[in-house]
């Protein structure tokens, strides 16, 4: 049975180019980069190269890149580290309702430590309410954190505008760019970003590595303590091989993004066009233009997402769903609820995230399987199609 992977927003394969780049760090260059001796220095040279590649990829300086174990750690660190370091200036943080849980849960933790958090609403396309941001930002606000692109619906935020509003009030701006890197040009100078999270496994580097960009001069408390690594800001022996892969991944992603985007957009738009024309009672979520090129979030009315995901899996197709059943909680995705979907429609939502390895032929197969399985589940459903208005 052929296998078709349409879950690249969840994770990606390590490309051959990146795997090749990593091998020396798993072989002869195994030293601890913080060791004084030659083994250590050789390993540190590889780390420095990765650091430089990432800095170049986002127009930052080498000294502004701090390696972490991934996006979750970087997000936790950004929120908690910046809040604690700046608490003398205020205790108010602004974020959005559609952030990843690694931001939202860090905010919940900060609320138990005496911080106040505002969770900005979004409109039905997923764009943060800018008027509300301007209204909420005040004397006690020390940090605004809004994700660059949303992982469930793909909507890309107006980062420059948000950064400008934050800076006009001397408030720091952090963005979770885990889903965004490689999809569009992220120049931290041009966008005026103070702090940014990136993760490796979304861009064909291994899992378990990421980084936090922290602009020079900005105070941040360490989060993982216990070692002098990363200028004393993040303890723990560096994951050299994964860092090497990560550095190469940022470099190749930025190098190839125009061509990749063109292909992803073509595949995604072809898929969405076919589904829209051939399957009734569906809704495409997210912004129509400001959207990640390879992501399609589609709600199939009258059926539940996990059952559709399972039927597709049996046909060899991998996708993911925002239904409650699959998340383990009893509530559907907070992102889908925030854009105003009813619980019933949110439950029937599936995310398709294409990769450059996918093909039109694969998409044709997926659409046929979708048509078949959506019809099958609808025949089992007690929910009626809405009557056509006269």
């Amino acid at each position, binding site marked *: 049975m052929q296998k078709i992977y349409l879950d690249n927003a969840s994770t990606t394969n390590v490309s051959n180019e990146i795997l090749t780049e990593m091998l020396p760090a798993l072989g002869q260059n195994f030293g601890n980069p913080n060791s004084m001796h030659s083994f250590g220095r050789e390993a540190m040279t590889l780390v420095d190269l990765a650091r430089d590649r990432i800095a170049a990829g986002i127009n930052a300086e080498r000294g502004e890149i701090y390696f972490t174990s991934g996006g979750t750690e970087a997000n936790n660190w950004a929120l908690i580290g910046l809040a604690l370091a700046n608490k003398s200036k205020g205790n108010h943080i602004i974020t959005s309702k559609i952030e990843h849980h690694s931001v939202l849960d860090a905010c919940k933790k900060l609320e138990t430590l005496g911080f106040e958090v505002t969770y900005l609403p979004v409109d039905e396309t997923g764009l943060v309410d800018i008027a509300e941001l301007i209204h909420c930002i005040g004397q006690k606000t020390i940090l605004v954190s809004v994700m660059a692109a949303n992982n469930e619906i793909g909507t890309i935020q107006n980062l420059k505008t948000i950064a400008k509003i934050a800076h006009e009030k001397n408030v720091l701006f952090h963005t979770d760019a885990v889903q965004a890197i490689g999809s569009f040009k992220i120049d931290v100078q041009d966008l005026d970003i103070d702090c940014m999270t990136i993760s490796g496994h979304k861009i064909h580097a291994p899992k378990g590595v990421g980084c936090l960009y922290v602009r020079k001069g900005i105070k941040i408390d360490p989060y993982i303590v216990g070692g002098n690594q990363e200028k004393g800001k993040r303890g723990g022996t560096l994951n050299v091989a994964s860092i090497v892969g990560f550095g190469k991944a940022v470099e190749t992603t930025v190098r190839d993004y125009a061509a990749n985007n063109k292909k992803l957009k073509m595949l995604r738009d072809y898929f969405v066009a076919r589904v829209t024309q051939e399957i009734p009672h569906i809704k495409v979520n997210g912004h129509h233009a400001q959207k990640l090129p390879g992501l399609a979030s589609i709600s199939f009315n*009258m*059926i*539940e997402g*996990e*059952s559709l995901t*399972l*039927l597709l899996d*049996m046909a060899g197709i991998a996708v993911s769903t925002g*239904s*409650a*059943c*699959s998340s*383990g909680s*009893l*509530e*559907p995705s907070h992102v889908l609820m925030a854009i105003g979907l*009813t*619980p*019933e429609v949110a*439950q029937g939502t599936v995310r398709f995230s294409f990769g450059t390895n996918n093909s039109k032929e694969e998409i044709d197969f997926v659409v046929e399987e979708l048509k078949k399985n959506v019809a099958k589940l609808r*025949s*089992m*459903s*007690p*929910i009626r199609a809405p009557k056509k208005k006269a």
Partner: protein
Amino acid sequence: MYTQKVIDRFTNPKNVGQIKGANGVGTVGNAACGDIMKVYIKVEDNIITDAKFKTFGCAAAISSTDVAMDLIKDKTIDQALRVTNKDVINELGELPTQKIHCSILAQEAIGAAVADYQKRLAKEEAKRKKDNN
């Protein structure tokens, strides 16, 4: 995550559908938690002669309702009301912990269909008494 029995019941449920002339119809659950089960029963001389369902939900929900219909067919009303979620899980082999609530909902769906049947019965009885007077 799922046993083969759950997968089989999910991909090839035997009891999906409606019953024309059903004399008991019950709906439980809601879209907010992702499960809605609608059960149709045909009761003749206190025996459930036919039982069908429609479910909006995951594989655990669909397979639980399919099994529940088999467990109440050809049973008396009292026997049907004694079917529990444990009987449903036994038939499926097992359910993951976070899906056990689906089997409980199936048990409640049986209860809802029976309650509806009993309500209709009571109404008919009241009407008969009124016509006789």
